[in-house]
């Protein structure tokens, strides 16, 4: 079977069915889940940590933890919700460990550049600088605030799902999100003010 065919077959199988297959012993079905959610999980963890190497390692750990715990997954929530929770837990743990060291933002320059079609040099530099600033600001937030901002603003996850991932009420999600955005704004305000003045 060609890779494209495999992808088509893989796309036709829901997360729930993949989970059932893995629980019945069909380990290959887990690869479908990995490929389907690797980008989301990687980006979430990368934005939580700010380091691609750390993000890669933690992302692998998150998937392996999910595989080990898949026997206890009852399907009460979406697999993605459950996976988010595992990933954030791993990221928060690693984030705490990294706070003991000086954490630096290690941008993935080449990858980020590909996202800007026909960028000019200035724009590329500015955008790169902004992203670094934002990442630094995210790194300085509390893990809970960073998580809610990344889930809502970066991943575009609904309020309800954010509530399920974080296991908090929807109202708490909204208030926490507003607080986190204001905290982030306060860290980015000097840059934004300077930019406006420059403009």
């Amino acid at each position, binding site marked *: 079977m060609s890779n494209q065919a495999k992808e088509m077959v893989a796309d036709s199988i829901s997360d729930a069915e993949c989970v059932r297959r893995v629980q019945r012993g069909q380990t290959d079905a*887990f690869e479908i889940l990995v490929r389907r959610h*690797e980008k989301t999980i990687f*980006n979430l963890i990368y934005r939580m940590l700010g380091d691609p190497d750390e993000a890669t390692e933690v992302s692998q750990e998150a998937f392996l933890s999910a595989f080990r715990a898949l026997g206890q997954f009852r399907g009460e929530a979406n697999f993605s919700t459950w996976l988010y929770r595992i990933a954030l837990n791993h990221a928060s743990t690693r984030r705490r460990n990294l706070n003991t060291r000086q954490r630096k933002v290690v941008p993935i320059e080449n990858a980020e550049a590909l996202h800007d079609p026909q960028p000019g040099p200035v724009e590329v530099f500015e955008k790169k600088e902004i992203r670094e600033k934002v990442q630094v600001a995210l790194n300085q937030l509390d893990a809970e605030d960073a998580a809610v901002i990344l889930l809502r603003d970066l991943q575009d996850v609904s309020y309800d799902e954010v509530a399920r991932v974080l296991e908090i009420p929807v109202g708490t999600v909204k208030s926490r999100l507003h607080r986190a955005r204001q905290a982030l704004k306060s860290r980015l305000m000097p840059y934004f003010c300077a930019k406006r003045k420059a403009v």
Partner: protein
Amino acid sequence: MNCQEIQPALSEYIEKSLDPIRMKAVETHLISCIACRAEAESLIDCIQQVAQLPILDPPLGFAQRVMTQVREIEAKPSKWQKLFTSFKIAVPLQATAVALIAVLALTLYQKQTRNHDLTRPPMTPISPAPLSLDQAGNSPTQQAFNSVPTGSTAIKHEKFRSGLAQLSSEQLDKTANVQPSSPKVHSTVAAQSPGSGAAENSAGDIKNPFTRRTPIQAQEVATGIGGFGATRDPFENAPSLGGSFRPGFFGPEHFLSPMTEPMADIEFMVRRRAQSRDENIAGNDASRQHQENGVAPAAIGQGNPPSVAVREVRWFAVPADQYQQFRKELVSEADIESEKQIGAMEKDPASNSNRELLIKVIIVSPAER
């Protein structure tokens, strides 16, 4: 709405997630409030900056590396998986624990049951009937007081022929009083006085010639009776006077000197039946000579088998017309080995209804050959 109420709602306003009424209210406030409008614009920038962060692809081979480690995990199950479950089969921990507890409880129960059986005192076997029981199952003591079949005769020592020492009335009273089941014997014997005639033995008194009387202690007989003396059995087999006395047909024992032995009208030699009488009580002294005082024939076969062969001699004074009854009862108690008439009398002792017969009974133990 004021600024303090508006600013917390700005995030939802920006995302347009407020209800229409509140949306309108915030919008109206922002038109007129520069500070809240600046705050809203700052929030929009932050949201856009985060939203515009690039979505990056994971490193090449990420999925393959994950699956490689997944397969390693599958090949080496965890400790719990080794013990209980794979994804296929789940062996509940609780079920295993319950099974182990059940096995342990059963083992302990069996062990306790075994120990209880071992520590329980052994069942006391039901002791067999004492060997001294007679054929009717009466103990020797009971036999001593049981009334004998009809034809009992009050035995009066004073009816012995010359040469016999006579029991004092006092001694007779003693023996009579201890035999509550034989009131007639009581009265008859108590009423006897030395020298009184045979006629005083009324027919009513004869009903139970072998009424058991309380055995007289050998010591009493030996010490309290005139003419009676504790003599040694010339054969040195008779029980000693000091030994305990046992009741029975050959109850009270009175030792008679061979020199004072009267001449019997009839002499029986009888053999006690085996395991029927306790001849150990008689001891190992010479055989004794006895005077029977109305002791009912009873268990010759009482008591334990004698450890030594002893002979006893008993004397009975029986009215002639009661002889057959006497003989019948003697047969029921012992095996008659010989019977001979010694004294001068008619051939048929029973025909002499007017006189008493002095009967000598030699009792041979079962062990004697």
